[in-house]
């Protein structure tokens, strides 16, 4: 099956078995290896990508479902300015807060967190932290105990709001 899709803003086309996992299309056919496989059954979230702006596990999405749709992977999060890469707010915050350790879950968490800070206002109170935990509960990290990741997402949300000129 010929599948045309937009990946990180660029039009791509692959000719694959419609049942091929989106994860394999990204990693093997398009050589975008930032998206990781941790379990292959939708439990760990290491393969989280955005499909038309919403987080999905790329190991549970078939290539045939992606025709005409937009996929964002971790490689598509950073922007570019003055000829250099500019980290997305969540990437910068994960770095600054110590939210990445071994790093294998980090791409999935960064992608999901980018959706969180876009999708809803996250404050800095206890309720906001609980909300971040709920929204990221599909992404497993075994290194951090999650504390510094939650810190990072809250910080990224504040940076996003400041960037948008909110008080």
């Amino acid at each position, binding site marked *: 099956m010929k599948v045309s899709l937009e990946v990180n803003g660029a039009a791509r086309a692959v000719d694959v078995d419609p049942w091929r996992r989106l994860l394999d299309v990204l990693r093997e056919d398009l050589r975008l290896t930032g998206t990781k496989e*941790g379990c292959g059954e939708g439990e760990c979230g290491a393969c989280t990508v955005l499909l038309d702006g919403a987080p999905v596990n790329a190991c549970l999405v078939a290539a045939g479902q992606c025709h005409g749709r937009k996929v964002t992977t971790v490689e598509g999060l950073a922007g570019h300015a003055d000829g250099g890469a500019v980290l997305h707010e969540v990437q910068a915050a994960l770095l600054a807060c110590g939210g990445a350790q071994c*790093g294998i879950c980090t791409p999935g968490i*960064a992608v999901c967190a980018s959706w969180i800070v876009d999708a809803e206002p996250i404050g800095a109170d206890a309720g906001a932290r609980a909300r971040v935990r709920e929204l990221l509960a599909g992404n497993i990290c075994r290194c*951090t*105990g999650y504390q510094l990741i939650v810190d990072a997402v809250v910080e990224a949300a504040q940076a996003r709001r400041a960037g948008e000129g909110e008080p």
Partner: protein
Amino acid sequence: MAELQPAGPVGRPVPRVDGVAKVTGAAHYVDDLDLPGAWHGATVRSTVAHGVLDAVDLDPDYDWTDVVVVTAADIAAAGGRNVVTLIEEDQPALVPLGGRVMHVDEAIALVAAPTRARALEARRHVRPRISARPAVLDTDAALRAEVKLYGDDNVFKRFVIRKGHGDDAAFEDAMAGADRIIEGVYPTAAQEQMYIEPQGMAAHWEDGRCFLVGSMQCPYYVHKAMKALLGCDGDGVVVTQAVTGGGFGGKEEYPSMIAAHVALLARKAGRPVKLIYDRGEDIAATTKRHPCVTRHRLGLAADGAIVAIDADVVMDGGAYLTLSPVVLSRGVLHAAGPYRCPVVRIVGRVVATNHPPHGAFRGFGAPQTTFPYERQIDKAARLLGVDPLAYRQRLALRPGDTTATGQELTFSVGSEAVLEAIARAAGPRPARDAVSAGGAPVRRGRGVCFYFHGSGFTGAGEQRIAGRATVALTAAGDVEVRSSSTDIGQGAATIFAQIAGASLGLAPERVRVVDPSTDKVPDSGPTVASRTCMVVGGLVERAARALGTRIAAWAGEHGRGGAPFAEVAAAAAAALGEVAETVQYEPPPGIEWDDATYTGAAYPVFGWAACLVDVAIDLDTCEVTVERCVQAVDVGKAINPMIVKGQIEGGTLQALGWGLLENVLYQDGKVANASMTNCIVPTFADAPDLETVLVEVPYPYGPHGAKGVGEIPMDGPAAAAINAVVDALGVDFDVVPVLPETIAARRDAWDAARRKS
């Protein structure tokens, strides 16, 4: 106006040196490596726990074109030995024909094919024939030794520690002097490391040399194992660590097995081969924390002082010896806990069963023996009617006291400091009874725990390893740290850059920490045992200082005496070419250990920690919510407070998971829940906000005072959490894990206790 000295890089929350690559997805783990022409491997495994391999049949109806099959016969044919060398050589890389199958999922044959799908398909057409024998599936059966798996008694290793008595009769006399004796039996379950990157390795051969790259903690372990397996010398094999997605001990010894397999496949296929486990295979076949049963007696004087401690520790080692003696050693060395006690007897045995070998997991035996003594101390406090934290403060080892092995504690003893930190952080107890959001009755409880963990290898282990590290000024003028200590997420590369930078007056980003590869770095010893920062970091510090001294001397000879390293490094490099300083471990003075009697200084120094946990239990569903978890850890010196905090918190949650939520189930010797759906670990939603208190009681022989921290956060929080459950419900739970079903099964008992209180 005097110029302010720029702050040195040590003690600051420097972002990880590998952080940008990790947050952008640019970091390449082994499965991300583009190896042109590479085939994919798969492993044919045993389906029985114990038996004899009669044959390996290849399906005659299958098309074997483009498939390579490797069996044990290929090893000897190329002049190698069919062993995975570790402490002993009892474990084969592949079960040979006529050889004994020792566990389910043991490797029997290998296949490789151009695609992963084809390799997995071909694997199904390789059919081992095994004559099954009766299997040994628990430690009691192993000790009865009706079926012999190892020696005459199935005991891989036995240790006895005696303090304050000569023999068993004298010990019993001392115990008989106790006013009361608390007895308990404490089984603890296996635990899966569940690093998020499954294990994997790639190999290719070039001019008769084997090049391996993969996910691992200890490149030189793999290197040593490959020399025996491939029948080559040290130059014949090069082992390189790829970016590694977590280890926690799980990538200490098993990578040698995968390396063996992929090296054999690549040799026979004549091309690069990748062997990447999927999650199910990883959980089923690789090592886990040793299941353990501890029988514990705590003898108390009338005033609550400890008169005698008796612990009998039995671990399930699984089918081969692997690292089990060392795990048992660390378990028994911590089994008396950080408490004053004149008379101690610890007996430890690790036995052979037909389970897949159990192995290294953060804590390395200590969590299994910490849980029993911390339940016992809690029971004692309850019996005496005293506050559990105050009781621990009273009994804690202090400078001048001796441990179970007779080691006198003289420096860097953070016991009182961590207990004080917990006392300060504790705050009021939350209301005992409440109602959940769903309307269910909720009972709350609070538990504490106090523990210690030796830093580095036991006894003379560090001298035996004689780890080395190099700091070099390259001909191009760059500063490089070369060591075999791997960064597996714990931040080794960053702290090495900080430590070397501090010694040379450089910002950490000016120091390059070389990716470990056995042809580029010296053997610094394995990345295990809470030793990387303290021991290898200490080597890095010494090597950097030596380099600084040499460059300063050159500068002095060339009219630039007193100039900072950064200003003269380029000129020195241009004049001298590469300047490298390599140093080797030297033990601190006064460290004496007797391996025969298991007495003396077991560790150069201990880390100390205490933990407080508040839980809320839904009395309808028996679900336990950890509402609060505070852990105070004496790390000596936080080289990077952000990284060490993250490391402690990660270990804390692994420990809470082990205590309350994780469980590895075995059925007929096979892991019955080998998937992340069924073998669960804590998620974001299961974890509370973790409170971490860094306590710094410096170790005079560590870099900037730092000592080991990797394992200690794993040792105690499970006990604190289960003590909290006991506090809430008023009945004892003496097992790890305490799952909702564990609590539900004792509903009658705790319901009655609750109505009485």
